């Protein structure tokens, strides 16, 4: 799709997913690493658990589809080369502490003078300015600060974080969108933008209706483990159920719009003699969640739970598809790799690496366009595209490259 944009990607783990999205939308994204490689290449797990700067699975995943060069921004030569690259690029993405790029002489105000149409996208825990701008933020801190972390976990323990830095994903996705919005502006009036993304702020939408609940009914939604909160009358219907080989997701919703799925599940349960008298008495079409109590909910869920325990997640998922029941497995990575639907859509693509010397499956691009589609490419090795980028874009000679490399600039 957008195959004419050139993006210089200086991000660390907080923002690498942004460039990945842009690359899979067709942009030429050049990952700019310090000589020796990004520090983020130290993030585990590694291929076959062998710690190696070119085998970090986290790094490989989020830097696939990008090119890679090395450049030392803490040298005068490095800054000069960077500025020359900026003049020939459309976007710079970075996730340094606010003010760091300015200190180096390559902040937005400075780069704007070189390239007035430049879009600079900055991804930070809390944003460029403000009372928290100088605060340190890792994923657990940004997620806690956003109001999201409070809402997950068992009621009798501390709120719990996903065992994965989700705020980096959410913030990076916002950054990709912000970059595209700014680029649209560049096309219509040639003025660049400084796009300011905050990880804390990007996570706020994930709190769904908890802020409206506070605003309108002065109630604070609290975590409830496998139960769902934020349902009208303070009910807590179950959302995660145990099944034979793991867990599935299904939840009771009322009203005529959910009659079909509820009846379909009830029918299936009756076929296997799992519906009890109470369950059979429920009038799904007129079920009003505002008029029942928690006791009713639990009485209804008891036979459902028993029914789910008799089946595997695959049986329940396929049965759900066939019978039009809102029922999904809590997939493991293995489940997803074997998933019939994903495979039919060619969602898993084989990517061949030089290092590791292996072929691994990756997700395909998140969008399938009827026009042009970008191919997922392997992440770059350290400095893999130095020669290509520096000799073609900046017309450096091989002697110059050698000098700069020896001098720790590249």
């Amino acid at each position, binding site marked *: 799709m957008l195959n004419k944009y050139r993006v210089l990607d200086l991000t660390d783990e907080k923002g690498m997913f942004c460039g990945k999205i842009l690359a899979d939308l067709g942009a030429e994204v050049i990952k700019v690493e310090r000589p020796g490689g990004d520090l983020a290449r130290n993030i585990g797990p590694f291929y076959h658990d062998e710690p190696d700067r070119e085998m970090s699975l986290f790094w490989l995943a989020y830097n696939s589809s990008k090119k890679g060069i090395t450049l030392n921004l803490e040298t005068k030569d490095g800054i000069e080369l960077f500025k020359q690259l900026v003049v020939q690029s459309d976007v710079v993405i970075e996730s340094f502490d606010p003010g760091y790029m300015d200190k180096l002489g390559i902040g937005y105000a400075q780069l704007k003078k070189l390239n007035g149409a430049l879009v600079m996208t900055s991804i930070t825990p809390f944003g460029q300015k403000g009372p928290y701008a100088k605060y340190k933020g890792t994923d657990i801190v940004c997620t806690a600060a956003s109001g999201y972390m409070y809402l997950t976990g068992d009621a009798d323990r501390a709120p719990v974080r996903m065992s994965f830095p989700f705020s980096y994903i959410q913030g990076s996705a916002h950054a990709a969108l912000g970059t595209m919005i700014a680029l649209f502006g560049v096309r219509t009036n040639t003025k660049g933008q400084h796009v300011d993304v*905050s990880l804390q702020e990007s996570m706020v939408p994930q709190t769904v209706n908890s802020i409206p609940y506070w605003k309108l009914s002065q109630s604070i939604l609290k975590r409830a483990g496998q139960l769902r909160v934020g349902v009208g009358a303070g009910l807590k219907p179950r959302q995660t159920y145990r099944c034979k080989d793991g867990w599935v997701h299904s939840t009771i919703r009322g009203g005529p719009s959910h009659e079909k799925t509820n009846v379909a599940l009830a029918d299936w349960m009756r076929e296997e003699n799992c519906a009890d008298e109470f369950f059979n008495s429920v009038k799904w079409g007129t079920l009003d969640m505002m008029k029942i109590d928690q006791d009713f909910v639990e009485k209804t869920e008891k036979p459902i739970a028993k029914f789910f325990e008799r089946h595997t997640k695959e049986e329940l998922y396929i049965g759900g598809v066939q019978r039009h029941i809102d029922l999904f497995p809590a997939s493991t990575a293995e489940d997803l790799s074997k998933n019939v*639907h994903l495979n039919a859509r060619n969602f898993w693509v084989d990517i061949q690496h030089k290092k590791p010397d292996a072929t691994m499956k990756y997700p395909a691009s998140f969008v399938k366009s009827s026009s042009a589609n970008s191919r997922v490419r392997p992440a770059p090795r350290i400095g893999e595209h130095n020669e290509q980028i520096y000799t073609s874009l900046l017309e450096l000679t091989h002697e110059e490259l050698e000098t700069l490399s020896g001098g720790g600039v590249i």
Partner: protein
Amino acid sequence: MAKKKDNILSGIVVVDFSWVVSGPVVTKFLGDYGAKIVKIESQTRPDLCRTNAPYVGGKSGLNRSGYFAFHNNNKLSLSLNMKNPKGREIVQRLVKKADVVVENYTPGTMDRWGLGYEALKKIKPDIIMLSMSMLGQTGPHANHLGYGHELQGYCGFTRITGWPDREVVQPFGALTDYLSPAMGAAAVLAALEERDRTGEGAHLDVSQAEAGIYALAPVMLDYFANGRTDMQRGNADDACAPHGAYCCQGDDRWSVIAVTSDAEWKAFCKTIGSPAWAKDSKFKTVLGRKENEAELDRLVEAWTVNQPAEQVMDSLQKAGVAASVVKNARDMIDDPQLAYRKYFKTPEHPEMGPFPNLGPCCLLSDADAEESPAPNLGQHTDYVCHEILGMSDEEFLEFFSAGAFE
């Protein structure tokens, strides 16, 4: 309605058939920076979110839902009867003037209304259509139904959340509902760039599930490379300690703390008053702190439990250590950083009064986000017909009498 000042995306007209959350958040993000979002609504089949609590004043009503209002700001609402041929004629006229059509129905729904991509192309050959269903437009399970609350588990998010000594817990909410829209909207803007360059439109197939799984790529690679499929670490981090949520003073108040280096550990010890236990050599290195993590967590919590979470956050951040209150909804409305960034626009909603909305996806140096409230159902029928479609009063009356807007 006064003519608004142009914003970055003011040149884009979007016909918005989407409903519930994922589709509406796409169009909200575009509307935030000026795109004209014409939300097609119907009295008889309203957006499900309009029928969800919480309601203003505790009283239900199609224009009183806080859940709906929160993410439907900066849009115009056009009430149409899609079963009425005059209603469908309005849609066709709108599409003629539009750049983008957004929908998130089960595949086939738009085709049944005569508004599938091929049909839309006949009306406007370079139209961009974003179809953002749960599982994509093709494939054996494309018509499976459900909500983001269940879908996020399908993507793998549930199996990586929870305590190592307990069952999994699903992450709160519906992660794909608010993750996939940012990606879908970015794809729309990419397709518009392509259209401007080549003259060709596109049908974009974004599966909410695939967007979520794509985002979890490292987890998938860990399986493909190393055969691992589960991850429940509680609040621990593989690479550092202390790292977790610690109980503070008050009712259900917590602070998270993440000490990610030896330098930060020194600063942490100083901030907590350099107690004797902190000088123990077993805590001196990262490895040592990890190996003795359980004990370390207990000692840290003995310090936090006697303080307000705000104090833990402030004192540690001042010392250069990452920490935050585990904020709840009340904390968020009063959050000083969000307030500084003017994140919660609180425009006057026609029926609900001043109501906060989710802010834009980011801040821009040279553009401000729009500040219109979520619309009442059909609030802009008149405006859309006159100002966007250029209808005369007589024409409008014709359509009105024929029942096009019911």
